[in-house]
């Protein structure tokens, strides 16, 4: 016997409100997943198209010190025919009237930029910056912000250090403003030859040196050329990371225009990873929810299915009807998911283009992307429904077979997700392993609950007694509720912890210094200390780690499996002092003791973890060409929020004294001296120092934190919205299932208040246990996730307390809203 498909759908489909809820949850999850994918792919394509003009050349040779004559000779020998431009970037101050301003000095030669345009407004119109640098005496070009805020005009004199030039242009457009900047303040362009006239010592002052190369025949030769240059310059390893004021990862880095893409989105990398992770988890939770709700629907429809089979409808027809229903749902979810994801990607993409400072067009997905993501949508919905169908109706299958089907389906799903996300096999294994462990924990909780409930003496209170009996018996319902809700809550709590860590890391403390002064030369130290008696001052020697325990750094990085070798290879700021300072505490070992014959060194806790360093390891530095070997005798914790001159590595005095060094100082707020006056005095007395305005910096940090915080909050809201919809559907279904028995209890004399209490006990026990377990699982998961990140492990306690209350409130509210459906009419 056959019935029209429409009739069968009417009999078997889930109520419309559940369809709507689950379609919303899945669509929103798919939107996030698709949006993330479109954005990542689109952004990479846009950057690839623009990267050559952003680098301003085919190749950049970047260094933290001026290239030696030998290095330049090696470059020339390797590339006999090429165009060259040079640039240095460093921080300084200018004085306009009474207002001192921290600036970023960009010293360029006549050829800069080799690729792309740096255009300047001059008295006669818009010109390339090369025209000004090559044709005018003492040329200075300023950023538009300086002209607008400080009223500096063309022709005005401007003093930087000991050099005074004339403003001959205002920047109209710069090719590299975002990717190659230490971002201390607005830019001021000067001629490279004038740097020495300013009084800056290129060997001591922190500068970011670049030598740009444009190849005469760049087609297809970039990678080979970079390899030849690296060989000629004796560069070991191929780390091309460059980070702000720390500069290149190695003393000299050679990179092509294609290498800058990862660097450009460095700031967004963690965020991108976070949203990638979040979208996978949310889709997974939504999928679990969908599976759970489909299963409950099958459970509810069991009587109808039996009747249909009695009427002669083949089981295959019933299965096909469920399949058709899930396919119809898939069309909606895939369609809206793609459309919404594309919209989400456009909005986020335009925001990111604005933040990076590049012009980007519409992000257009490729046909392959559309096909892959559509396939994911269909596999998600139809696959889940198929697994549920199999598990629900193959009563002859053993639990192991059912578990194998479930596990296999989940593994396939995660493999597809990671495949689309471009993750590694290792990440897939970790992800799947973590997920299975989390599910196993919740399953274990369920087993434990059942064990306890069956052995618990039944209490006198009838509502509690019946609640316990119900919980004891409703095995499948209880198990799936615990796993699904537990996973959803775990995701929400992990997000909350992530935000707490971000806030703990970046929120500055109240009593922070107001200025941070760097590059104080040895001959300026005494005068500086006399002028700023309340400042905290520390010596700073720039060096690189050569060996650890006599193993060369490159080999050590490989042997120790260091995740981010940048921290090992980059230029290190090493300091020296006899005592610990405010905000520091020794975690392992002990502070310097004169009795110890070794040169002692103290290292910061997280830095030690990152570099896999421990007590008694010996570290050999190259300090401006001279070696220094020290032994780690203490590992300490530093409160970076104090903004004092903290360091990763401190060497026991006086062993750092012989090395060329500058000093860094923190100036606290001074009672009778406004900040502007201090800056003015600094600019006059010490024109070559670099100054960081802590307030401005912390504003920048807080601004960045705000972006991340907003993104994380959006993620949390996303997860919470999905969780709440899921909860409503679950409670609604549970309430429906409980209505019949509630009605019977009422008939035989149980007061309504007791029935409510019974339901609340049932919900309360389940929610309490899920919440507590989610709190534990989320804490452990987060500890594992954060262990490989520089962020501190900080827990947000609020969700731990609030979540159970909110869940109980939702459950209670929902149950009461269903009361009218089962309470008999007493008044007609």
């Amino acid at each position, binding site marked *: 016997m056959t019935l029209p498909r429409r009739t069968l759908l009417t009999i078997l489909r889930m109520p419309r409100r559940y369809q709507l809820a689950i379609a919303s949850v899945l669509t929103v999850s798919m939107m996030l997943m698709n949006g993330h994918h479109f954005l990542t792919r689109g952004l990479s394509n846009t950057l690839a198209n623009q990267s050559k003009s952003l680098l301003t050349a085919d190749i950049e040779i970047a260094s933290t010190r001026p290239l030696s004559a030998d290095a330049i000779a090696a470059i020339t020998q390797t590339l006999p025919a090429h165009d060259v431009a040079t640039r240095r970037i460093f921080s300084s101050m200018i004085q306009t009237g009474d207002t001192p301003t921290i600036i970023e000095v960009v010293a360029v030669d006549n050829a800069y930029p080799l690729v792309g345009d740096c255009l300047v407004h001059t008295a006669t119109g818009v010109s390339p910056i090369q025209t000004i640098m090559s044709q005018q005496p003492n040329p200075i070009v300023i950023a538009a912000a300086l002209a607008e805020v400080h009223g500096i005009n063309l022709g005005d004199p401007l003093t930087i250090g000991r050099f005074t030039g004339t403003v001959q242009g205002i920047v109209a457009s710069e090719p590299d403003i975002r990717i190659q900047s230490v971002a201390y303040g607005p830019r001021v362009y000067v001629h490279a030859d004038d740097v020495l006239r300013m009084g800056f010592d290129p060997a001591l002052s922190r500068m970011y040196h670049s030598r740009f190369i444009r190849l005469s025949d760049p087609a297809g030769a970039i990678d080979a050329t970079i390899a030849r240059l690296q060989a000629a310059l004796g560069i070991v390893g191929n780390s091309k990371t460059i980070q702000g004021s720390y500069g290149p990862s190695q003393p000299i880095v050679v990179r092509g225009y294609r290498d800058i893409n990862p660097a450009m989105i460095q700031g967004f990398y963690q965020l991108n990873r976070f949203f990638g992770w979040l979208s996978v988890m949310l889709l997974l939770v939504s999928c679990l929810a969908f599976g759970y709700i489909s299963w409950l629907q099958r459970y509810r429809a069991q009587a109808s299915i039996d009747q249909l089979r009695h009427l002669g409808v083949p089981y295959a027809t019933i299965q096909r009807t469920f399949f058709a229903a899930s396919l119809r749902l898939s069309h909606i979810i895939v369609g809206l998911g793609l459309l919404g994801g594309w919209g989400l990607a456009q909005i986020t993409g335009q925001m990111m283009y604005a933040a990076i400072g590049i012009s980007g067009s519409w992000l257009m997905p490729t046909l392959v992307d559309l096909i892959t993501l559509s396939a994911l949508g269909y596999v998600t919905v139809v696959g889940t429904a198929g697994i549920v169908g199999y598990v629900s109706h193959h009563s002859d299958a053993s639990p192991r077979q059912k578990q194998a089907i479930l596990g296999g389906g989940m593994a396939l799903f995660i493999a597809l997700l990671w495949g689309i996300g471009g993750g590694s096999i290792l990440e897939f294994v970790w992800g799947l392993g973590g997920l299975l462990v989390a599910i196993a924990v919740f399953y274990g909780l369920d087993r434990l609950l059942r064990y306890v409930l069956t052995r618990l003496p039944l209490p*006198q209170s009838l509502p509690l007694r019946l609640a316990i*009996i119900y919980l004891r*018996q409703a095995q499948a319902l209880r198990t799936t509720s615990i796993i699904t809700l537990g996973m959803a809550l775990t995701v929400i709590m992990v997000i909350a912890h992530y935000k707490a860590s971000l806030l703990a890391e970046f929120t500055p403390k109240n009593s922070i210094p107001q200025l941070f002064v760097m590059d104080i030369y040895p001959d300026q130290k005494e005068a500086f200390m006399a002028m700023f008696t309340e400042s905290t001052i520390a010596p700073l020697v720039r060096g690189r780690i050569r060996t650890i325990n006599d193993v060369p750094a490159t080999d050590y990085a490989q042997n120790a499996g260091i995740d981010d070798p940048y921290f090992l290879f980059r230029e290190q700021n090493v300091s020296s002092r006899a005592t610990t300072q405010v905000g520091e505490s020794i975690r392992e070992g002990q502070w310097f003791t004169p009795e110890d014959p070794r040169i002692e060194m103290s290292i910061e806790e997280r830095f030690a973890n990152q570099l896999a360093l421990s007590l008694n390891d010996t570290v050999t530095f190259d300090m401006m060409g001279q070696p220094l070997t020290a032994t780690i005798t203490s590992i300490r914790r530093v409160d970076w929020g104090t903004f004092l001159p903290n360091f990763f590595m401190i060497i026991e005095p006086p062993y750092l004294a012989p090395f060329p060094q500058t000093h860094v100082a923190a100036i606290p707020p001074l009672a009778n001296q406004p900040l502007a006056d201090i800056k003015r005095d600094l600019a006059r007395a010490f024109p070559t120092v670099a100054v960081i305005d802590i307030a401005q910096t912390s504003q920048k940090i807080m601004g960045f934190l705000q972006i991340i915080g907003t993104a994380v909050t959006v993620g949390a809201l996303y997860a919470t919205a999905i969780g709440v919809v899921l909860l409503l559907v679950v409670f609604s279904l549970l309430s429906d299932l409980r209505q019949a028995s509630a009605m019977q209890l009422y*008939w*035989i*004399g*149980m007061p*309504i208040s*007791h029935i409510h209490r019974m339901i609340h006990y049932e919900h309360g026990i389940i929610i309490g246990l899920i919440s507590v377990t989610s709190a534990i699982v989320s804490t452990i998961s987060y500890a594992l996730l954060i262990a490989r990140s520089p962020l501190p492990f900080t827990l947000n306690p609020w969700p731990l307390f609030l979540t159970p209350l909110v869940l109980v409130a939702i459950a209670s509210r929902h149950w009461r809203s269903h009361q009218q459906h089962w309470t008999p009419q007493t008044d*007609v």
Partner: protein
Amino acid sequence: MIVCDAITKTYKNTLTVLSNIDLQVGKGDRVSIMGPSGSGKSTLLRLMAGLEDPTTGTVRVNDQNLKSLSDDDRSQLRATTFGFVFQSFRLFSPLTARENVELGLWLMGVHDSKDIARDWLDRVGLGDREHHYPHELSGGEMQRVAIARALAPNPPIIIADEPTGNLDHAHSERIQRLFFDCLDNRSAGLIMVTHDPKLAAMCSTRYRLDHGTLVPE
């Protein structure tokens, strides 16, 4: 004792289901009510159990007007005064046979109820099925558990709504015998709604509901 005094039940002001019904059921009375489907038999039982209020007239149980009682008081009254046997058994699926029988006792505040429940399961011939769940019992066995649940608290009044309606002829006769055997030597009153003339004949007082009016047979 239940006293229905001139009760009328009208739905949506247009559909009169019961009209001017007078009925008394006291200790030891055995009352049956027959009538075609839709004649208002179940509505009458719901009114007597305090699950609904009559549109006019009063229902008094143990001299208390049900309309004047709160919902919780009515629930209390149902738990202590009535034992229910339904056509569809209405057992609780998460509870074992013994727990289903105990439920009636729990609702009366009797917590040490295991032995009483076991005793009643023995009486209805299900002593060896105390740990079985409803889905593990046949229809006849489920109805026997339902009878045990209704009678175990020793209520003054039993309300039975088509107690054999879902059973085949053989089971039906067995349940009838069991039901009335269990009621023997007990002072409980019985109000039973049924389509089965044989079952009705086992009661001393018989009525027929005809177009909302109660007619003695």
